């Protein structure tokens, strides 16, 4: 059947096929590892949508980077730091994965930050919130992409205090993320002249918040700050309405409300809630185009985590192409050199502490009358310029910054 090629010719052909790819890219393939919560409380915020977002970035970039094919691998970390760290180590040290994306859940992210630091491979965080990733726990290979607790605090906290909400009571979910969000918000509230009347730590996850809401009500604070996320924020907002807390004059400040949570609550329950996010699908042509493709594949509109996974994957691939290699230091240098420009971030840039600086947005959830459909939920109140949204380098405790 096959005509035999002369041996030298076959060798040349084989070399021509493999040589460019293996020249500069480790084991000849660029592997993007999506570390996500596939079935737990954050599965709608990250999960399958993050895998699709990574695939979409690769499709938009082209099938090869620096001449090597690109692959996506994914794993479910179940929101457990030990599972995530083990998987990340296996990927980075044995399976030839070149970059980690998403990595939702703050406690997970802090563990993975250390693994990536030891393996010296880039970790691009779009899912987790804790600002510790670019503060005391910063890493030369860790980049925090989509948002962080500091920017949430600046966005929602400052806006609420300036509207007269100057006394706060916190419902704080009892793990790294909640503590970080609470601390960052308290700093903003106090800097703006507000006061904190109390705080209660709620176990993760909690189904019934009524007891904690009553304590918040008894405190007499004008604002109840919800330092929680996912199902916890859905249940706490819903039950606050049930117990008439919002009707009796106290206001809720949702410090981290993902779009998937707002959608689950619906405009009827969530109306009027102020929140900060790094992305909303209905902002301009670019976001709408991405959202349209996304909803066709996933069945839901993208969250800021999904948009961040897309943006970070795309930027990583651009840097690999520009560096002509997937060697970590060369790629990171290019990532910091090339401006980040896509529908998620306009003129975004990466700082020495690993913070990707881009504009953040303050939204208010529309009323059922304003909303034209189940996905039409946010009204833009304010664009928070990147340099205001994120912690100034002068306040950062990141050891990489030197003195």
């Amino acid at each position, binding site marked *: 059947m096959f005509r035999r090629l002369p041996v030298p010719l076959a060798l040349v052909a084989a070399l021509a096929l493999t040589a460019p790819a293996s020249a500069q890219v480790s084991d000849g393939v660029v592997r993007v590892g999506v570390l996500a919560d596939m079935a737990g409380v954050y599965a709608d915020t990250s999960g399958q949508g993050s895998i699709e977002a990574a695939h979409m970035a690769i499709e938009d970039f082209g099938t090869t980077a620096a001449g090597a094919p690109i692959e996506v691998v994914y794993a479910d970390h179940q929101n457990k730091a030990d599972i995530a760290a083990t998987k990340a180590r296996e990927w980075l040290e044995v399976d030839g994965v070149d970059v980690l994306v998403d990595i939702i859940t703050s406690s997970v992210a802090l563990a993975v930050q250390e693994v990536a630091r030891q393996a010296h491979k880039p970790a691009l965080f779009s899912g987790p919130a804790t600002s510790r990733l670019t503060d005391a726990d910063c890493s030369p290979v860790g980049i925090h992409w989509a948002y962080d607790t500091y920017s949430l605090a600046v966005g929602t906290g400052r806006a609420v205090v300036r509207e007269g909400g100057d006394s706060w009571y916190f419902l704080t979910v009892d793990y790294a993320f909640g503590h970080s969000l609470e601390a960052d918000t308290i700093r903003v509230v106090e800097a703006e002249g507000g006061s904190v009347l109390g705080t209660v730590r*709620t*176990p993760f996850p909690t*189904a*019934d918040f009524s007891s904690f809401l009553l304590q918040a009500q008894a405190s007499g604070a004008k604002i109840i700050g919800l330092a929680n996320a996912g199902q916890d924020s859905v249940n706490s907002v*819903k039950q606050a309405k049930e117990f*008439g807390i919002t009707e009796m004059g106290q206001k809720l400040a949702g410090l981290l409300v993902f779009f998937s949570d707002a959608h689950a609550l619906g405009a009827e329950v969530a109306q009027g809630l102020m929140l900060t996010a790094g992305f909303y699908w209905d902002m301009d042509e670019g976001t709408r185009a991405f959202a349209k493709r996304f909803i066709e594949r996933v069945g839901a509109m993208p969250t800021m985590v999904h948009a961040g996974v897309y943006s970070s994957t795309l930027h990583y691939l651009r840097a690999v192409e520009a560096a002509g290699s997937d060697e970590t230091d060369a790629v990171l240098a290019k990532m910091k050199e090339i401006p980040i420009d896509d529908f998620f971030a306009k003129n975004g840039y990466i700082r020495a502490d690993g913070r990707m600086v881009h504009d953040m947005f303050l939204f208010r959830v529309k009323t059922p009358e304003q909303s034209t459909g189940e996905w039409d939920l946010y009204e833009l109140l304010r664009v928070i310029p990147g340099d205001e949204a994120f912690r100034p380098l002068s306040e950062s405790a990141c050891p990489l910054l030197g003195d």
Partner: protein
Amino acid sequence: MTEILGVPLQVLLGQLLIGLINGSFYAVLSLGLAVIFGLLRIINFAHGAQYMLGAFAAWMGFSYLGIGYWAALFLAPLVVGLTGIVIERTMLRRLYKFDHLYGLLLTFGLALVIEGLFSNFYGVSGKSYAVPELLKGGVNLGFMFLPVYRGWVVIASLTVCLTTWFIIERTKLGSYLRAGTENPQLVQAFGVNLPLMITLTYGFGAALAAFAGVLAAPIYQVAPLMGTNLIIVVFAVVVIGGMGSILGAVLTGFGLGLVEGLTKVFYPEASNTVIFVIMALVLLFKPAGLFGREA
């Protein structure tokens, strides 16, 4: 204002009431588990999934068929009860001759499959279910604002618990059931169709879980994983009350709701572990449970 350990009395009263409301869910759920364990000796790990199914059945009935809350309160348990009957007939039945562990593993697997399917189709964020018109609003009790719906939850679950207790402990049907647990061969020799009773009992247990699910739908988000965390607590309630003890399950359910409510005031961080601490203590000092009989 009167204070107890630095907490105003009014706050404390509010928290006790909240504890009672949460206790209602524990009571109905642990009752179902206790009934199933009492007769089938099956540790029904699918109970949390059946609770979730009840809530979803109510939501689906409303969204797809326009069936309201009150009808759902009867229909959802009926539907879930029937699926329970199918599960018992086709799967559980084959495991009675083996160790309890097999029933536990089967129902645990079923729970994972059911929850996985619902997560896949509806997403983990779940769906909102509105409070029925008749039970909207709330009453100001002076020490707290009580949503009418929460009051209804306590009444509905107390009614269901007492009725179930009455049927099992005070009627002829109940006496057959109890006799069946003591000595199956003898009861069958008297012409009682025990396999049928076992099937119906499992269906009834599943229906109780679904009933709790419908009660929970307007308060919590109707979500695929709503039962997973709750079910572990409910197992602890059953163990503390004494496996298979009907009255024990109900009283312990309400009691532990109160204990948990108080923990939320004095040391909120421990509120999801306090029940397990109590369970450990009970197992140490009274292994058969507070209301169980020593074998």
